[in-house]
């Protein structure tokens, strides 16, 4: 058996003339929690969508359990997706269904299980995320943290082999963040699954991840265990991990000379340069 459940090989993806990923290589070993980190707009979520087969790469391939995702037809992709669970950034709970029905949704849609068994399974999943007592509530009645936990219960409803998390900690209070953090690790170990976390929350991600990839400017700029990356002297990793304001990722968006702009000179001549890892801010 291939030790890696997901493999990304020389993947390039772009749209509207912009190349978002340029020859990315990543592997996600079975049973591990692997994080993909990077700044906003670096294409982390797009990588999850490429793994899930929602979009096709321009070049290269993504293999899930040995199968090339973009070569599958609709049925093939749906078959692969049955091995996956995904937690969306804001939960993506179905607002017209109760908490119970949200968790029961994949079971009712994809299995022929009797309703009595679905009931027991849903309650077990909700109990695992600590929300068995909230089964009757509707999504608008839940707090952000609770909604994320219900979405997590729904993501693992069919015991997937791969669980993908899109910004699981975004917008949560510290208690909810701790709870979600703990759940990701414990569910991964209990189910023997592989977790792929897309996040820019360094502290929480480093706490639970076995391996981390840093993505910037469409490339993997660093990778390693959280411990290695904490010690990294690479300027981008150092700036990101320690949350420094300026560095390879400039504080200022590329702009014309500050003094000249204030004095009304060159007002229309803004720089066309794009922010990048090797460029410092052009603002003076």
């Amino acid at each position, binding site marked *: 058996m291939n030790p890696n459940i997901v493999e990304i090989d020389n993947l390039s993806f772009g749209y509207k003339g912009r190349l978002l990923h340029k020859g990315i290589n990543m592997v996600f070993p079975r049973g591990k929690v692997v994080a993909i980190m990077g700044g906003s707009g670096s294409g982390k979520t797009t990588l999850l969508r490429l793994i*899930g087969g*929602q979009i096709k790469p321009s070049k290269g391939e993504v293999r899930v359990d040995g199968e090339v995702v973009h070569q599958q037809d609709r049925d093939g*992709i*749906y*078959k692969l*997706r*049955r091995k*996956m669970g*995904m937690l*969306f*950034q*804001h939960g*993506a*709970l*179905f*607002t017209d269904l109760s908490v119970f029905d949200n968790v029961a*949704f*994949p079971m009712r*849609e*994809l299995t022929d299980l009797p309703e009595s068994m679905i009931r027991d399974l849903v309650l077990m999943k909700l109990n695992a995320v600590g929300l068995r007592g909230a089964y009757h509530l509707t999504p608008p009645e839940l707090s952000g943290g609770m909604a994320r936990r219900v979405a997590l219960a729904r993501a693992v409803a069919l015991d997937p082999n791969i669980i993908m998390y899109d910004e699981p900690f975004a917008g949560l209070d510290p208690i909810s963040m701790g709870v979600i953090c703990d759940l990701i690790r414990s569910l991964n170990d209990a189910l023997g699954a592989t977790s792929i976390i897309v996040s820019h929350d360094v502290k929480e991600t480093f706490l639970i991840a076995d391996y981390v990839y840093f993505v910037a400017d469409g490339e993997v700029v660093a990778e390693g265990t959280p411990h290695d990356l904490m010690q990294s002297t690479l300027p981008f990793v150092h700036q990101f991990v320690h949350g420094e304001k300026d560095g390879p990722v400039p504080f200022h968006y590329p702009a014309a000379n500050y003094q000249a702009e204030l004095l009304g000179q060159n007002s229309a001549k803004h720089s066309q340069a794009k922010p990048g890892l090797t460029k410092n801010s052009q603002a003076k």
Partner: protein
Amino acid sequence: MIKSKLLNSLTRTLRGIGSRMTERVWRLGAGARLFFLTLVYSGESFKRFHLTLREIYFTGVMSLLIIVVSAFFVGMVLALQGYNTLQKYGSSEAIGVLVALSLVRELGPVVTALLFAGRAGTAITAEIGLMKTTEQLSAMEMMAVNPIARVIAPRFWAGVISMPILATLFSMVGILGGYIVAVPLIGVDDGAFWSQMQANVDFRLDIVNGLIKSIVFGVACTMIALFEGFDAPPTAEGVSRATTRTVVISSLTVLALDFVLTSFMLVI
């Protein structure tokens, strides 16, 4: 210099027209593709007909109030205006036929479709647009559940089933409104009102044709609402624009289709 500016301006204008035309053709193609896929995946939604029944409640039953109240007033106004004209020619007894034919042939299907687009069509677009914005459709896709089979097809059939029922109710309530104005208020003979109607309204040419129109309008209005929601950019502004487009495009489509269908029906 001036020539060059003029040429540039002309090029920009032509490019703008071309771009808008291309976008419209593209949207028409995307809409047709969604319609085709909806028909393909309808079988799956028929297997779970409770989903369609639920949508019939939201699109059909919840539209009842606006349909019934509008129909009542439309019928009353028709009777008043009809009587005003007919009495000049001494044929005020024909008021029943006028009200019934106007409603069954034209006003029933057309006004119901316009009200449906405003009431249920906008609700469908906003709901699907918000489901897209909040990633509910993506979540469904990632769970290997086809959103067209689970979300689009039940709503489509609910609209197609609801529309002829609503149009029939519209005509019935409209006739009742016309009767109340014509007989008790104006004093037209009760027997003449109903017997003239019975003698002059043809089941095949009037009632069935009216039903065919309402089914066609049901397909058009529901599909436009679904496509606009499904195609809406996932932002608040995108959903708002899509909702507006649903009303505008549905209304124009209904009026244009009405002309086409009426032409065919009168010829045949």
